[in-house]
């Protein structure tokens, strides 16, 4: 399944957020969406998912316009991981993940045994098996994020849209989620995620889209796009991008090192 975004303009009624955004998401590809706060990443995602009306242009799922698709059809094609939030009623993690099965469950039906099997599989995949019977409202922000990813996985879609999936996670879980994303891609799923960490784009992205002021500022492979010039242009800070070889297998990886964080010595701080 392929997602094509063509000349998409998006925003809220009376307030345009961005325009002219075009890119493709092919099966097995990971596209990382980077950009400053307020650049329109979440709004773009909501428009691609058809949750907001597009203000021009369109998104196509296998050639079908999102505008013409029913909610159920979209939910069978695109899984969505929102930013973690607190929740209102104490549904268990299991109940929460089962809600991802909605598009596969009949109007008047409840989740079947096979729906439960899928949900359990995804809970196990995300490493939250031990908290599956705990209320979603009582687990940590990071665990909620993992539960929401499991819920989107339970949708069993060929496209995944993730809005800052690593934002509220500790370091270990960040790595786990990035690994999960590359696993999904290796299974032929197309993933688009937004992130604030360019290193994450290096680690799991095949392509990077930089969204600034609602427009695509740069697009290409992470190595092409994420350079110190680009980072200075987009974020306004000095950052050095270095290619390193890992000690374990000699794989080359790019990392970003912020230069503007000055190293004050302990002694100078006491004055």
């Amino acid at each position, binding site marked *: 399944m392929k997602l094509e975004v063509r000349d998409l303009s998006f925003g809220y009624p009376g307030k345009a957020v961005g325009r002219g955004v075009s890119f493709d998401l092919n099966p097995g590809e990971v596209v990382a969406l980077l950009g400053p706060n307020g650049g329109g990443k979440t709004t773009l995602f909501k428009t691609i998912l058809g949750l907001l009306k597009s203000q021009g242009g369109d998104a196509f799922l296998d050639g079908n316009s999102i505008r013409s698709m029913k909610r159920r059809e979209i939910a069978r094609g695109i899984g969505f991981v929102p930013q973690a939030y607190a929740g209102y009623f104490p549904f268990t993690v299991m109940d929460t993940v089962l809600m991802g099965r909605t598009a596969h469950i009949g109007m008047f039906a409840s989740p079947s*045994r096979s729906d439960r099997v899928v949900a359990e599989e995804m809970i196990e995949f995300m490493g939250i098996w031990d908290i599956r019977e705990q209320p979603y409202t009582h687990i940590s922000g990071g665990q909620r994020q993992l539960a929401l990813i499991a819920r989107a996985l339970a949708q069993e879609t060929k496209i995944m849209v993730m809005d800052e999936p690593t934002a509220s996670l500790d370091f270990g879980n960040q790595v786990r989620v990035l690994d999960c994303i590359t696993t999904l891609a290796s299974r032929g799923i197309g993933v688009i995620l937004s992130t604030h960490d360019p290193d994450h784009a290096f680690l799991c992205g095949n392509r990077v889209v930089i969204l600034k002021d609602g427009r695509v500022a740069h697009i290409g492979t992470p190595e092409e796009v994420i350079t110190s010039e680009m980072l200075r242009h987009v974020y306004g800070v000095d950052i050095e991008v270095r290619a390193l070889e890992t000690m374990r297998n000699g794989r080359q990886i790019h990392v970003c090192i912020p230069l503007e964080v000055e190293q004050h010595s302990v002694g100078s701080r006491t004055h």
Partner: protein
Amino acid sequence: MSDARQSAAPAPVVPSAGIVGVITALSERRYGAFVLPTLLLVLMFLLSFAIGRYPVSPGELIEVFIAQLTGIAHDLPPVVDTVVFQIRMPRVVAAMLVGAALAASGATYQGLFRNPLVSPDILGVSSGAGLGAALAIFLSLPVIFIQGLSFIFGLAAVFLVYGMAQLVRGQSDPTLVLVLSGVVTSTLLMAGISLIKYIADPYDQLPAIEYWLLGSVASVKLTDLGTVLIPITLGLVPLVLLRWRINLMSLGDEEARALGINTSRLRILLIAAGTAMTAAAVSISGVIGFVGLIVPHMARLMVGPNFSRLLPATLLLGAGYVLAVDNVARTLAQVEIPLGVLNAFIGAPVFLWLLTRGRRAWQ
């Protein structure tokens, strides 16, 4: 939970040994949590036939019930039959119907509006019904019109609120706009009620309006029950059928849509169902507040937030609760205390107690 998975997982932790452990384990399983609400309802049902100005002993009660079912005559005085079937039966059934309907629509609305402080009259159904009843009493219409007008006005009020919300909603959160329209419309309708009270005949009509607004099931006839059973059942059917999907509405509009739900269609269906049930209940009982607010809370504490379990629990608890309060209302004092008033006296402390100990019901 699949059995295979269950056995593969680490052994379940048994809370504690002995009977306490068994009861705890049972109450955490699927049906254990329903034992208490069911027992409460059965107990209240039997009790409400037995108590009152003409006490009926449990033995006599069983005798007249068996006689009624089998058609075999009993040798008790005929007055027992009259008391049980003519006087107490309509009242008992009305209390259960009203309680179940208010509690179920309350639970639906709380999920729909993602707010545990919501009650079924949030969209103005009670004030609409009140205005209809007040108008009928003011125009000296027969009793059937008091019920009819209150039902129709209750529906019309919510229809108005929904229409208003559709007009102004724009891109804002649709539930928020609905609640605000509901508040505005309620205020308007309350002003209407006040106006009618002001111009009504102070010796005859005004007390009747006041009494209706206080809420009571004392004067419900058996024939009334048949009439309200239809809208209550009609409202209950979609709730039962959509019981699992209703859960998703509590995620909020965007997320429910992203998961594949046509939220505007589901929302209007649920509002229609809740309104039909509440308007029908209010049309025979008058305004009985609080039930739709606190009973879903109690039920959530017992069975959790999943609507598939919450719905049967609220129906049982709602019926049992209003029956219990009505039993107190008619036996506590020489003069009967209006159900709506007593309900507030009992409900407010109960709710406070729930707030202090039962936070997990919504957080």
